[in-house]
Structure formats: C-alpha cells, structure tokens
C-alpha cells in the first residue's frame, strides 16, 4: 500500500505541479473511531507532510460513504404540475465543496462584521450570514457561463461567482486591491457573468430580465438568475419585468430571498400577500426551503431546465433567514426577538444542517471539517490582512472609468483651477 501511494504521490506531483503527499486513511482511523477511545489518547501523529505540501487523504477500505441520497422538503408549487425531485443525491466531494463554500462565506461575513466594528469598513455593509445555502445551492445548479444578478446583500454571490475573499474584503475596506479597485464598495462588486451588487431596491430585476433577453437574442442557451428580497417584491418594476419576461419567454429565474424582514419591516406588515412564489401570477413558482443547500440546488436545477427548454421565466421563493440586522447599522433586535434568531441558528443553520447530514451518513469525519475550518479561517485571516494593509487607490484614479473606449477627457475638480484627467 505504501509503495502504491508513493507512486501515486509522485505522479500527482508531476501532474499538479504541487507537492502532494498521499496518506493512507488507516493512519487516521485509530484516532477518530469512537470504538477505540483508549487508543485515541495515545498521541499518534500522522506523518508530517513536507513544507508547502497539501495533505490528500486517500481512499482505503475503512472509507467514507462516497454518495448518499437525501430526502428533501417538498416545494409548494404554483402553476406547476410537478416540482423538483424530493430526493437529492450528494457525493462526498460535493458535500465538502458546499461546506467549504458556505463556511467561507460565513467566515468572510463575520470578518467583515469585525472590520466594520473596528471602523476599517465604512458606509453600507449588508451581511449574508444565515443565507449561505442560497448562494451555494444556486451556484451548484447553474454553469459558470450562466448569469447572475442580485441586490446589495451581495458578498456571498460575489464569492460564489468567482471573486476571491481577498478582493472582496479589500473592496469593503476601499483599497486598490479590491475587485472594483476600491471605487465601488460593498454594493458594487462585479465579475464575469455577475452583474453586482445593486444599490437601488428592485432595480436589478429589470436588469436581470434584460440579461436574459441578451441570452435569448444570442441563442447561447444561457440563463440569468435574478435575485431580490421580500422587501423588493412589492416594487412596481418587478411586475413590469415579470410581464415582459413572460410575454417574450425570457430565460430568467426570478428568485425571491425571503428572509422575513425588509429592513425592519416584517413581511406581514409589508405585503398584502406573503406568498412570494405566487406573486408572478401567470409565471409558475415554487416555494423552497432556503436553509437546505440541497433543496436550493434541486429547485434551481429544475428552474434552470424550465428556462432552458424555452418555457419562459419561473419564480423561486427561498425561505431563508439572516442572523445580522439589515445592515451593520441595524442591531437587528428591535423588530425581532433574540430567541427567534437563536432558534434558527440552533435548528436550521445551513452549515450545521449539511455537516450533520454528512457526519451521520459517514460521508466525512469531524476532523476533516475541522481541517477545512482551519484552512478557511487562515484564508479569511490572510485576506483581512491584505485588506487592511493594501494601500488606498491613488488619487490619479479619481476620475478614471467615466467612459469606456473614449479618448482621455478633462474633468472639473472642486474649483476651476483643478483640472483633472480621466482615462478609460
């Protein structure tokens, strides 16, 4: 076994260019198996990997379950004969991937909270912790070539759409290493096929329908996922978008992230109808458990198939919850009780739910999760370090990026003698 692992190790090193050390899982078994608590106390350490190496745990007989099928909550349906599957398959890799994604978003948001309290982040900061299953589940169901647009609670999506934590945090702290060079801030982060980050409530919904129009026009079989909140769900421009999307059969998934509160106003106080999945009227809809990443994934897959088959738009309402207040300036307890927040945290936390599922089905070990947590903590810590030490954008950048592909122009400064230069 050891020989084979050495051979595979060196092959992997050549392929990946990284230093890889394969360790037989049996080295760990005695440490973690509950059946031998006495042995666990003996300080048996796995072989130390060479510096800079990545530890890859190999498969062996005492293996984890590679794949399992889970029952997921049924979705309430509107104008749909059938809904998404009530069974979700999950492989070990996928599970660890989703865990990693959600945990990264969680830790990143908590780090942002910290930095905001230290006044290193200023202005608006709308945090996504509690809602991670939505971003992770959606991304798992669509392709990178599909499109996504959301409102201002956007850090999670910015990450799932491919922007590194470091660039997100640096954008929050307003440094030149930020994804928008520090010029956008919390609500204006962009990436290929990710259109922000939009500050005006509801304005992103017509934009999303327009992106879907472009997909249809170009015939590229891509779709657009357009997100909005329960607060935005009453905006007139949404209904204008629903009308045109349905009329022209645009490949658009409209997703309402219902976290029960539009800023400080509960859904019952804001909406005459809180069945957000039905608000599209002539557009079919589903109500989905937004705290379960598998539920979100299955529903999004179903919705994506619906759009790609030319049936037109579809609405998903994700029932989810945010632990933080609306933004950093909202403690979040004047319009809801701490008990409510605590209850959601203990019973429905999306990360815990996934972890429990995987542990109880022997798909991974607590150790592994811990390892992942440590890695993520380090990643976020390093990112925060970068975000606090990177310099602010230079003043020469002030007037750039007014126009694209245009000759340089002169921009008036604060007084007539201040003639600033703007380049594309």
């Amino acid at each position: 076994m050891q020989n084979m692992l050495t051979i595979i190790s060196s092959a992997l090193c050549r392929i990946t260019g990284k230093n890889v050390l394969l360790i037989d899982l049996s080295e760990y078994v005695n440490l973690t198996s509950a059946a031998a608590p006495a042995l666990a106390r003996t300080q048996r350490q796995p072989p130390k990997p060479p510096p800079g190496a990545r530890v890859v745990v190999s498969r062996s007989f005492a293996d984890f379950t590679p794949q399992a099928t889970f029952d997921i909550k049924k979705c309430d349906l509107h104008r749909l004969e059938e809904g998404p599957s009530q069974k979700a398959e999950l492989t070990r890799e996928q599970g660890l991937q989703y865990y990693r994604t959600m945990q990264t978003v969680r830790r990143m948001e908590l780090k942002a909270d910290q930095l905001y309290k230290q006044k290193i982040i200023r202005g608006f900061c709308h945090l996504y912790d509690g809602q991670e299953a939505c971003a992770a589940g959606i991304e798992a169901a669509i392709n990178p070539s599909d499109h996504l647009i959301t409102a201002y609670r956007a850090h999670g999506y910015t990450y799932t759409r491919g922007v590194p934590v470091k660039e997100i945090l640096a954008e929050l702290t307003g440094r030149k290493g930020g994804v928008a060079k520090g010029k956008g801030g919390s609500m204006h982060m962009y990436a290929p096929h990710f259109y922000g980050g939009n500050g005006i409530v509801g304005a992103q919904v017509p934009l999303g329908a327009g992106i879907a129009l472009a997909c249809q026009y170009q015939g590229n079989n891509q779709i657009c996922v357009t997100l909005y909140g329960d607060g935005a769900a009453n905006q007139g421009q949404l209904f204008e978008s629903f009308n045109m999307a349905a009329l022209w059969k645009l490949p658009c998934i409209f997703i309402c992230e219902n976290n029960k509160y539009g800023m400080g106003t509960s859904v019952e106080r804001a909406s005459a109808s809180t069945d957000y999945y039905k608000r599209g009227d002539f557009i079919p809809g589903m109500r989905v458990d937004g705290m379960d990443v598998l539920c979100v994934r299955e529903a999004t897959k179903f919705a994506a198939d619906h759009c790609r088959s030319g049936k037109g738009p579809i609405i998903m309402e994700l029932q989810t919850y945010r632990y933080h207040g609306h933004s950093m300036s909202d403690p979040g307890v004047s319009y809801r009780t701490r008990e409510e927040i605590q209850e959601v945290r203990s019973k429905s936390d999306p990360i815990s739910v996934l972890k429990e599922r995987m542990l109880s089905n022997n798909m991974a070990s607590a150790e592994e999760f811990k390892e992942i947590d440590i890695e993520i903590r380090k990643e976020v810590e390093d990112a925060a370090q970068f975000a606090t030490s990177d310099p602010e954008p230079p003043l020469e950048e002030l007037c750039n990026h007014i126009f694209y592909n245009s000759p340089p122009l002169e921009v008036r400064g604060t007084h007539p003698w201040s003639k600033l230069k703007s380049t594309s």
Partner: protein
Amino acid sequence: MTHSDPYINRSADWSKPTDLGGGSAFSPAEDRLKMAASLKCFLRSGKNAVSALRRREFHRSAPAAVQMTVRDALNQAMDEELERDERVFLMGEEVAQYDGAYKVSRGLWKKYGDKRIIDTPITEMGFAGIAVGAAMAGLRPICEFMTFNFSMQAIDQVINSAAKTYYMSAGLQPVPIVFRGPNGASAGVAAQHSQCFAAWYAHCPGLKVVSPWNSEDAKGLLKSAIRDDNPVVFLENELMYGVPFEMSEESQSKDFTVPIGKAKVERQGNHVTVVSHSRYVSHCLDAAAVLAKEGIECEVVNLRTIRPMDVESIETSVMKTNHLVTVEGGWPQFGVGAEICARIMEGPAFNYLDSPVTRVTGVDIPMPYAKILEDHSLPQIKDIIFSIKKTLNV
C-alpha cells in the same frame, strides 16, 4: 424640385417627400412649421440652392446634395447601424408594428423583424432596465422613450444603472446603450409633455448627452451614439422631424458620423456669438439673417453635444466677437445657458467679454396650453434679436 436631376435620383429613397398622411400623431402645427422651415432652409443655406438645381456636372460620379428630413435621417442612421452590427436592436413603445409613434422607425420592423425591433408594453422603468441589462450582457440596444417626459419614470435606470456602472465597477462593466426620443416642447401638448431634459441628464457624469439640430446632425450623431460604448442620451425634437435639410455628399455615406463632443459653427460672424442647440439653432439663424440687414453679423454656434460640452469652440468664438448670447428652449434655472455662463467665466474668454453673457430661455413656468400663452412661453425670434441688440448695446 430636385427630382429631375439624375444624380439626385440615385438616392431616390431618401429624397421621397415624407408621407405625413398615415399617422395621426402629427399636429397641423408641425405641417405649417415644416413648410416654413423648408422655405427658410433654402433661404439660409450657405450655397445658392438654385444653382444646385441647375448643376449638370456629368463628370461627377457621386450624387449632389440631397434633401432629407430629420426623421428620415434618423431612420437611415438606425437602418444602417442595424445592418452593420447584429447586436444593435431597437426597443420602445410602438416602434415596431406602428412604425414608431412619430414614424421615426418606419419600415424597420418590416425589414428586421421581431427580434431586432421590439414593441414594449407601457412600462418605461421595466423596459429601460431591460435595455440596460441587455447592454451589460453584450448587446447594443437603442431604447426609445416616446418622449423624454416619460423617461422620468425610468430615470433611475438611466442614471444609477447605466451612467454610473462603468465607474462603480472600475472599468469592469461598460454599458453601450442609446436612449433616444423627442425632447422639449412640441405644439399644444401642455405641461406634462413639454419639458426639456437637457440640463437634467447633462448634469450627470457617466452620460453623454447629444442634441442634434439638422438632418446631418441627426444622422451623424445617432450613428456615433450607437457606435459609442457608453450610455448616450439622444435628445431629438418633434417639431424638427418633418423639416428637410440639405445633406452633403459626405453625409450620404454609410460610415458618416459626426463626433460627439464637438460643436459646429453654422454661420460665421464678428459681432456676437450666439450659442444654441436643437430647434433653436433655426431661430438663431433666422435672427442672424434679420440682423445682417442691420449690419450686425452673428456667429451662430450649434452645440450638437451638451455633455461633454465643447466649451473651447465657444471660447474661441467669444474671443473673436467679445459678446455671447445663449439660446435654449429649457427653463433658465440650472440650465444649459447657465452652465455656459459659468464655464466662460472660469476660462480665458471671460477677459474678452465686453458685456455680461445673456441667456435666452424658455419662460420659467410649466408649459400652458392656449396657443397665445404657449407662443409666449418659448424664445421667439424677436426675443433673440432683442437680446442680441441689448448685449451689443445697440
């Protein structure tokens, strides 16, 4: 008139007289204005129009100058750009099957079909947002507002989603879109349908704001606007749609564009600089013709672009004439004329002024309906003449 000349007939499509009979969207006022304008056009054009008729130059291979209305020039611009680039499409109310509320998009739906020419429901905020989203995802939409008054319903999408995005994204997300439609006063359409939005849009960084006067302006600037990779607000004027102008040879080419950001001196003069945009350029030229008889030579500058404004052209002119009068249809406060005054004051031309700048503007009231009141709400030629004389102290 010019139809007998074989060279002119070569671009026969464009020289067909505009058919006003079909649509009920035109006012008799427009017809009267159109006829008056055709006459004025001949009187005012630099070349002798009569000699153009008589020209029989068989050795010339290109057609001579042709008459085209502003409407047809806009139509031709869009047609050429739709043909040139597949990503260009037009959306708005009644642009397709109705041929356009003002017939500006006549024939385009027949030629290009549903995919490229899209009729929208009456939902400005929605379809302006959809157009902006399509631009973000790689298309090049022309979003028509039936009039710019209705753009107020969608102004958030124009400003916050279109104008600011390239900057907010630090260059990651351009928005190549044109918002076009008639702007300013028409005839008898009263307060809610007569506002001029030049100052409103020109206030915002990230937008280009263009205001053509004649057919060459209309064609060349619209082509430039469509080819521009940035959001452009294209302010047309309903009363100018039916007015024919001579189109130079150059302007008949499919690649003819007028650069955004450069003004044009329509008439040379030494005594006073008169700066205007859109329909009022006509008024200024008329005033100049009258004043010429009294020995006052006006230099008439057609802004063509409101933002970025070609202040240099104005300054060059002012440094020659030492007097400046601005003429616009919009309201005085915080308007185009106000901006010109401020910019002249801040620049080298201030020292050349022999008198303060005069602004001729619309009256500072919502537009009334009754004809006599409406006529007195907007600058008339006599107001321009009066103002010029006052500025010159004659």
